[in-house]
């Protein structure tokens, strides 16, 4: 994939630091999902302010309706910017489809710059099961490309925290929660970019949820 970034010497130094971070095991603060179906929760630090950009609200399971939210652009000052924010959840008697996305992500947390050209989370629940997927294009940290494996709950170490890619949680009732990107920096910020939920707990989608 093309990258418009040209790597200057300063950036190379940053890249070297980032590379060290990436190869160094960092304790994962998120309690990652137990895919056997046991309850899983994210234990990011509870911080002072929580902001949601383009959330659909919750659609009760079994409700035949469709909720949506969109915006040309969205931002949280000094933390995050994105474009074409989009969130939908569609309910059926026997199914829920939820989807959230944004483009041109620029997330700055604890001096680190996390970017992606496109980020999307989708969750689909049907009777007897649920699946989740994420689409993430050209993810980078401090300008260094981050390969996305496609596996659930891929982690990348951040200074003082962790970035979980394609985070998938299965709640106790089988509800699937997919967070395309979840950046947790202890005591600084807990940011979810593109979140989709589907299951007995209902349908919900959010372009961004940030505590800081």
């Amino acid at each position: 994939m093309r990258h418009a970034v040209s790597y200057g010497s300063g950036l190379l130094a940053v890249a070297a630091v980032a590379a060290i971070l990436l190869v160094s095991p960092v304790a994962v603060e998120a309690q990652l999902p137990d895919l056997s179906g046991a309850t899983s929760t994210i234990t990011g630090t509870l911080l002072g302010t929580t902001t949601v950009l383009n959330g659909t609200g919750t659609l009760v399971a079994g409700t035949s309706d469709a909720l949506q939210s969109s915006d040309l652009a969205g931002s949280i000052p000094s933390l995050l910017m994105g474009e074409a924010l989009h969130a939908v959840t569609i309910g059926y008697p026997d199914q829920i489809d939820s989807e959230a996305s944004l483009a041109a992500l620029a997330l700055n947390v604890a001096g680190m710059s996390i970017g992606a050209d496109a980020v999307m989370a989708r969750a689909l629940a049907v009777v007897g099961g649920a699946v989740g997927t994420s689409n993430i294009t050209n993810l980078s940290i401090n300008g260094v490309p981050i390969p996305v494996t496609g596996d659930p709950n891929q982690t990348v170490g951040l200074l003082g925290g962790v970035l979980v890619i394609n985070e998938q949680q299965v709640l106790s009732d089988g509800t699937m929660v997919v967070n395309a990107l979840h950046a947790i920096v202890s005591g600084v910020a807990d940011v979810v970019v593109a979140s989709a939920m589907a299951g007995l707990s209902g349908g919900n989608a959010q372009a961004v949820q940030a505590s800081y």
Partner: protein
Amino acid sequence: MRSLISVCAIAALVLAAGGFASAWVSPCDFLTGGGFIIRDSGAKANFGVGGSCKPGGDGHGLWGHLEYIDHGTGLNVHWTTITAYLDDGDTATDPKTHQPTGTRLICGTARTNQFGDVNWVVDAKDTGEPGDNDVFEIRLTQPVSGGPQHIVYTTEHDSDHTLGGPGPGGGNIQLHKPNPSTSGSFGGPCPALTLS
């Protein structure tokens, strides 16, 4: 890849036939998606889109939305109404996910930063997973002296309409099956398809 023009011709026939659209056996569904395309200039154009025959219930016409930013021209498009949702007749089922695939046209009105208020039509195609070959095209029109529409912006002549262009992907477009709230039929007015 089929161009928006040919799809428009089909849609125009549907519109011209009036009640013909409501005679289609395919029940009305939903299309949603987000990501980016790459213009022939090399610039990215980011979008988020949704559409359905379902009444929006919010005073903005049908259910749906459109957000679009072309970084090559600086164009911003923010939807104001959804006026039509049209089936291109290519609905199928993804053998991997068992979810529907196909092309839909979504029409509406929008505010832009370069042309003022416009009519628009989006041609969006879900080709199945993972979405790399999904298609997004957009056309904006305005009336000439209050009469027929003329195109003020379009991506339909670009060489590649797939999400992310030649790269490994750039979002996803998803067709969703109907639910009991989609009581309307495919159709509705689409001025962006009625050119001078």
